[in-house]
């Protein structure tokens, strides 16, 4: 009989998940980062992947936009096999997914307005006036209308995150991926960004995965949580389920 704390692969639930990984393995050289990860997120759910630093959380979500390809396993999003898409099909999927990078990844040679316009101009047939209207609406939504003409270097960390979020949602995606959305922010900014994530789920029905080790953010946004340790999902459930887990690594993460 196996120990309850042995490496258990948690199988995804049945149904038709919006986002799914099936037994994904990923290595870089001789470092085996993901060792058979399987998870599923249903439509409209806000999922969180937690774990210590260097456990492969960023590597995990990059598979959903084909920034990385798995060595083994399958990656699914919106009913399509992501790791096998190419060309226009891949572009169409990527346009359905917004991605908020850990450092926001704003284009620093462009103003806030231009950062958003850059995406809109290339992917829509809006007129200049229509694009401006959409941009200001989106900036209003993240409470940053007044920063439109500023450059990223002039913004605070929290403002950069919100502009990054504005750029991620400007094309009204169905899915959002957040890579450490609140890292480096003060508690007030953590709440602001976390509340925005919840609003996106509630107001727009967006399905999302956030990777984070910020407990406050996780507590606010989680519908379903996964705990990643040494390349495997060792626990899954609600935030409270993880908080009450018996697994020693999970307990060590959450502290006393």
């Amino acid at each position: 009989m196996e120990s309850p704390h042995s490496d258990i692969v948690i199988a995804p639930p049945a149904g038709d998940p919006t986002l799914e990984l099936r037994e994904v393995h990923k290595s870089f050289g001789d470092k085996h980062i993901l060792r058979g990860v399987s998870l599923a997120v249903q439509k409209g759910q806000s999922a969180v992947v937690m774990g210590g630093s260097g456990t492969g959380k960023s590597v995990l979500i990059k598979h959903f936009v084909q920034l990385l390809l798995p060595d083994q396993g399958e990656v699914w999003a919106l009913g399509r096999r992501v790791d096998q898409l190419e060309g226009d099909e891949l572009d169409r999927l990527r346009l359905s997914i917004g991605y908020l990078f850990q450092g926001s990844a704003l284009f620093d040679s462009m103003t806030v307005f231009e950062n958003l316009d850059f995406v809109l101009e290339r992917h829509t047939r809006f007129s200049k006036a229509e694009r401006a209207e959409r941009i200001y609406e989106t900036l209003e939504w993240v409470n940053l209308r007044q920063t439109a003409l500023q450059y990223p270097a002039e913004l605070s960390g929290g403002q950069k995150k919100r502009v990054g979020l504005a750029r991620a949602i400007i094309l009204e995606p169905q899915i959002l991926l957040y890579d450490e959305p609140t890292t480096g922010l003060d508690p007030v900014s953590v709440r602001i960004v976390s509340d925005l994530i919840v609003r996106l789920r509630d107001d727009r029905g967006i399905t999302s995965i956030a990777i984070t080790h910020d407990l406050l953010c996780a507590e606010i946004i989680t519908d379903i949580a996964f705990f990643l340790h040494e390349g495997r999902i060792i626990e899954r459930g609600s935030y409270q389920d993880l908080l009450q887990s018996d697994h020693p690594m999970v307990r060590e993460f959450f502290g006393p």
Partner: protein
Amino acid sequence: MQFRSLLREQPGFLNDVLVRTGDFALFVGEFFNRFWRPPFEGRELINQMDEAGTKSFALTAVTGFAIGIVLSMQSRGTLARFGAEAVLPNMLALSVFKEIGPVITSLVLAGRLGAGMGAEIGSMRVTEQIDALEVAALKPFNYLVVTRVLACVFIFPVLTIWTDVIAMVGGYLESVLSSNMDYRVFIATAFSSLRFSDLIVDTLKTSIFGFIVGIVSCYLGYTVRGGTREVGQAAMQSVVVSSLLILLADVLVVRISLTFFGGA
């Protein structure tokens, strides 16, 4: 002996060089696969030509002026020994237009543009801006690499001609100060044996040099992994590698042009 000990101490060194060379070849192949396909990013190409061109005019002007004056000063004494001082403008024009102007201009631009592009794209890589372009289906290769390489290909000959002209102005000023030469005599003598093929071939070879600077700098920036230290190394290597390849390419181009167009 030294090479053997290098391989012993760093057995992966040769492997790394071969891998990197192969990777670079694939990158060049990707450029030729993409540059003629949409998205064409015309506006960004013009931006890059402006960045590379108009902001290099002053630097190349100073370079040209210095080349002209120094070459004229250095050559005058040597030619005077053979009683051939009168052909100085001719010698100056042939040297500047055929070789010194194109090569020196390209090396100077390798320093300015190569370092700038390597650092800029490298910074974008480490701050995930290139990944952001990728996930937004914005084709970062076309937007960042194709535009910059083509800008260099188009701009290098233009700046070379500019440098050459300023070099001749510098040479003329030196001639006026040294021997009070009339400008009509200077111009007539300077261009008396300069052929059209000299101008065309030796100016257009700078398009090849421009391609080298663009593709090497973009490759080194695009493939940065790490942090600010690696970005700095990419910028430095962009200059060094581009400069070396320019000099090697010049040998090849001169050899080929002499074969097809004959000697001076």
